[in-house]
């Protein structure tokens, strides 16, 4: 288990993300990725030849064609041939794969990227295909409805109220005002948000994420490169992820044991947490993840505005790690927790602990 072993220090040396928009109707995936990867390299003055490994995260179903990751590689320029891999998961898991490789000590730098245009199809139908293909998907339940079931369970259990969901949304949008890459931002009080219509009760409009086209890239570095490429490296000191059962009706939807386990293995509680970037596309999910990670009121949560401010599917998790690392690099935090999620109602969760020097 990770917590028990010595972790080779690996830093998030650089992070870039596309402007998060409702719809990028001009560029294809490659054209959208190019400037993001160029920015990630340019910010630390390196080129593609300085990284030893490349790993990406994406899904075919956003674009409606098989092998969508294949052409995306043209945004990197893998010539001469490079050691390269791809996960059909959020880029946060691609980052995990790269981090694992760096743990062996044979290579010192990796490029991780992710991309996806959520605007092309109907997410309510596409994400249904993640469900059990025999006993769930054939009825076409949509992702918003499933999350409404989870939100209702929280309310029924006395763990939260609709006003709590609105408070998460209000704070996220206000914080997003300071994030130039955010898609949804504004200073709207809780009382006003509570006047929103229900989309699927008990979830009102503000408790849902926006639909976002986006991309992100991170450069990981170890050894000399880590210290050469960053004045104040954001070191990954703990990293783990866990999955729960898929059967929604066999889960306690009000808790996230997979987040709790990943947080425990990653060592979240081993020191004070200054800030947390939580990948909670639906407002109520933030409350569940906070509890699972044991974060109290002193922790700054989602200063970027989080997934409620921009939710580029397949990148939103990776962006949480980038956002947390950026604040450490900028000296705004000493110890941060980043979280990513996948699957219906927080089925799979990843926790990454980052620390300044």
């Amino acid at each position: 288990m990770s917590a028990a072993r010595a972790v080779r220090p690996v830093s998030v040396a650089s992070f870039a993300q596309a402007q998060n928009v409702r719809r990028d109707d001009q560029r294809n995936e490659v054209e959208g990725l190019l400037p993001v990867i160029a920015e990630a390299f340019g910010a630390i003055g390196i080129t593609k030849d300085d990284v030893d490994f490349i790993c990406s995260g994406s899904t075919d179903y956003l674009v409606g064609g098989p092998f969508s990751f294949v052409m995306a590689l043209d945004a990197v320029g893998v010539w001469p041939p490079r050691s390269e891999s791809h996960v059909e998961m959020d880029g946060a898991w691609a980052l995990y794969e790269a981090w694992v490789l760096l743990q062996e000590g044979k290579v010192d730098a990796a490029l991780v990227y992710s991309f996806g245009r959520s605007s092309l199809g109907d997410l309510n139908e596409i994400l249904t295909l993640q469900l059990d293909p025999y006993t769930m998907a054939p009825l076409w339940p949509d992702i918003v409805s499933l999350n409404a079931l989870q939100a209702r369970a929280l309310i029924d259990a006395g763990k939260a109220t609709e006003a709590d969901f609105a408070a998460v949304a209000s704070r996220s949008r206000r914080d997003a005002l300071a994030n130039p890459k955010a898609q949804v931002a504004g200073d709207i009080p809780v009382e006003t948000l509570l006047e929103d219509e229900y989309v699927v009760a008990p979830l009102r409009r503000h408790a849902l994420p926006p639909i976002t086209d986006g991309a992100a890239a991170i450069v990981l570095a170890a050894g000399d490169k880590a210290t050469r490429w960053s004045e104040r490296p954001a070191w990954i000191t703990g990293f783990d992820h866990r999955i729960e059962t898929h059967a929604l009706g066999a889960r306690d939807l009000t808790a996230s044991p997979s987040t709790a386990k990943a947080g425990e293995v990653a060592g979240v509680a081993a020191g004070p947490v200054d800030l947390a970037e939580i990948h909670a596309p639906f407002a109520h999910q933030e409350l569940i993840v906070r509890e699972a990670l044991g974060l109290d009121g002193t922790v700054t949560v989602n200063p970027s505005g989080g997934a409620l401010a921009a939710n580029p599917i397949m990148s939103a998790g990776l962006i949480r790690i980038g956002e947390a690392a950026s604040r450490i690099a900028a000296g705004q935090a000493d110890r941060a927790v980043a979280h990513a999620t996948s699957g219906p109602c927080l089925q799979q969760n990843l926790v990454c602990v980052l620390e300044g020097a």
Partner: protein
Amino acid sequence: MAERCAVIGVGQTHHKAKREDVSIAGLVREAALRALDDAELTFADIDAVVIGKAPDMFEGNMMPELYLAPALGAVGKPMIRVHTAGSVGGSTSIVAAHLIASGIHKRVLTVAYEKQSDSDAMWALSVPQPFAAPLLAGAGGYFAPHIRAYMRRSGAPDHIGCMVAVKDRQNAMRNPYAHLHLPDIDMKTVQESVMLWDPLHYLEACPSSDGAAAMVLAAEDSLSGRYPPAWVHGMAMRSEPTMFAGRDQVNPRAGRDCSADVYVQAGITDPRAQIDVAEIYVPFSWYEPMWLENLGFCALGDGWKLTEAGATAFDGDIPWNTSGGVLSSNPIGASGMLRFLEVAMQVRGQAGEHQIDGARIALGQAYGGGSQFFSMWVVGSEKP
């Protein structure tokens, strides 16, 4: 310093055109439970699960690791889903092996599968996108021109492809899990089969199969199992762009670089002399002589001569695809893992009728896409 990693359990399904007797979960569990049994372990002993498959559109099940997590005993554990096109079964094995080599986990279950009969492989691979070029050739039509280019460059005679097709199908008769069992196959049958994509005959192409493969990988201090471990001596992945000016699709540099990397790790300087047996991704017959050259088993232009001389036959000095290979079973997502798994079986001495006596060092290779993604590993019966 990297930890040593070994294969301690293997399992595969009976591969068929349509496995109508199982669900998707049933198919992957068949392979996974066999691998666990071979390792004398249960799900409870496994630290993490790494799963791979080709496009989700084959089954219409997006990011299937979510649905399959409980079926593979992954609840409460890390689970990763790899997708690197046709090489995915190999890449998945490598991602799993790095979880051991990095010291993060002690025992990892890795699984790859495809249940193509839920849809139709030709459909899923060729969903036409707007503005795309009109479909001219189909899957084999993509590869046939490169085969023609190989023949032109090497001067190989026409019958070499048919020889590979016969050899691999005869080998499949020794493998109870193989999809195609064609007891009467011979040169005449292959040469008289329909010419699909000239110069490729029907019997020179792989079938479309349902199937799954699984392995249990373990760290040096966590060995178990019914057979001795197969030690990983080297592993590597390489990718190059899909289309670029001057790209050599007959002898891709990514393949050459990938093999050079694993050979250095495994201490191999003369592949033909040092490798006892190999399982190489040959979905179309002519890829055997092409990969013989790409993998450095001979000089450029000489691959077909090795095939013609019987060097790659079951009783040759470098037996290739004694399991019957991709030409005999092709559950796409699992096909690469089957190559990795079969060579582990060889050095563990558990390959039954298709066992090469005394196999100690073996090479598994998978490739994907338009020959731009490669993954390989070398396993051995002795600790590296």
